[in-house]
């Protein structure tokens, strides 16, 4: 059974799908499947200075990250999207992406552990 542990919270998720544990498990599983390819795309785009693509991916996954309340991740992703969309502070983008990927990866790892 998944519980609300430190790096993320399931409260918002329960608000969307109700308290059915099966629904929550399925949605966590779906998140674990769908987020890693997006993180890979984010890293590759940042490495290749494809800032529009970084902004697009950040924009796309932002609501999902928000649903899990992954610690500090939402603020980083907002900053990333803003910088890339406006072409500001682009030298910080790679570092922000790394930091984001690390925080989400930790959360994913805990989720996987609890699913098992």
């Amino acid at each position: 059974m998944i519980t609300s542990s430190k790096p993320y919270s399931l409260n918002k998720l329960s608000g969307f799908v109700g308290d059915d544990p099966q629904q929550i498990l399925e949605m966590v599983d779906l998140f674990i499947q769908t987020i890693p390819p997006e993180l890979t795309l984010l890293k590759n785009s940042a490495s290749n200075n494809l800032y529009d693509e970084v902004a697009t991916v950040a924009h796309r996954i932002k609501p999902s990250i928000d649903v899990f309340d992954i610690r500090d991740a939402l603020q980083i992703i907002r900053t990333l999207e803003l910088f890339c969309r406006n072409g500001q502070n682009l030298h910080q983008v790679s570092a922000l992406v790394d930091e984001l990927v690390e925080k989400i990866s930790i959360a994913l790892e805990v989720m996987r552990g609890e699913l098992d």
Partner: protein
Amino acid sequence: MSSFKIFIVEDDRFYGELLKRHLQLNPENEVVLFQNGKDFLNQMYQKPDMISLDYRLPDFTGDIILKKLHADYPEIPVVMVSGQEDVKTAVYLIKEGAYDYYVKDEDTKDRLWHIANKIRENKKLKNEITELKEEVGKKYNFSNIIGNSSGIKSVFALMDRALKAKISVTITGETGTGKELVAKAIHYNSVRSAQPFVAVNVAAIPSELIESELFGYEKGAFTGANARKIGKFEQANGGTLFLDEIGEMNINMQSKLLRVLQENELTRLGGNETVKLDVRLIVSTHRNLAEEVKQGQFRDDLYYRLLGLPIELPPLRQRGTDIIILAKYFADEFCRENKLKPKNLSPDTQKKLISYSYPGNVRELKAVVELATVLSDGDEIEPDNINFNATDPIANFLSADCSLEEYNRRIISYFLQKNDRNVLETAKQLNIGKSTIYRMLKNSEI
């Protein structure tokens, strides 16, 4: 339980699934998820009841899809969704025809839930309105105006002509002949049937109120005008306005009505704004308007403008066996509405019904038959169950417009019945030869 189909277009598979499962908490919702604009547009033939559309998609931007949807499916509400908290975008999308707009944040689920509920309620109300309109249309179908007499057939022919053009119609006829029914039948069978039918009984509105009732007024136009009121003409815009008993309108108001009809526009009382009108006018009266014009009671210019297609409804006493057809119809309808066994009209009852002159016309016949249906005990309505209540029996008798021979026949028949079919007694009472009565009996004239 009728399903409510919602299409969600969301490129983030996880978030889309989240919205889908949230909306499916209401079992009435059938939710289908799409991750790109192309797949979504390919399925639009399914005509969903609501669309939740992400503003940024991999293959299209939301505003391009929104324009396409607005052009091809203007009746389907599209709710725009975006992760960007941009008021300008929201305003722009609403102007482009979006039903609503919300951003992806912690309020998303509640917003989407309430929007879906609102659209579902609107859909139910629209369906109810459509069903009611269809019911009304059926009720006023030509087939519901009953009768086979030549008089009523002439009316049908004129009504048919009235459907084909936006011509004014003047319906004349005695009280109770069905003038409003004919007006409604013309409206609900015309191209204007989806638009309003508004009826105004001119005789029932005090003369000092008729202008504001017909043309409306602005706030502050007079003491007590606390808010703008839309008049009957505006309510009927696009449809039909039925002015019942137009002959009762005073001369001053007639001039104002004429001006509105000439200009096809009006100005509300106390206002400056001109309102364009597209109203089909049907008027009715029990008076002889041409005579009223001669006597200076009705403006001749208004008379000619209103006249259009004149339809004169025959009084029931001139419709022969229509009386029996109508009586049977009213009896059946009354029995059905009151869950009673159907009742027949005995031959003597039919004779009695046909011999009466009906000063109140079809309305009176309906009341007489309904009462008879209640009073009858068996499967048949008997003559004793029929009660006529003419206020002036002599006027009623004479209003039958019969020949002298027919009046004679009726008088002899009446007294014969009163005297328990005693021919000698009847002949003595009427001071006529008994052979006259025997001859009439032999020839089945009485």
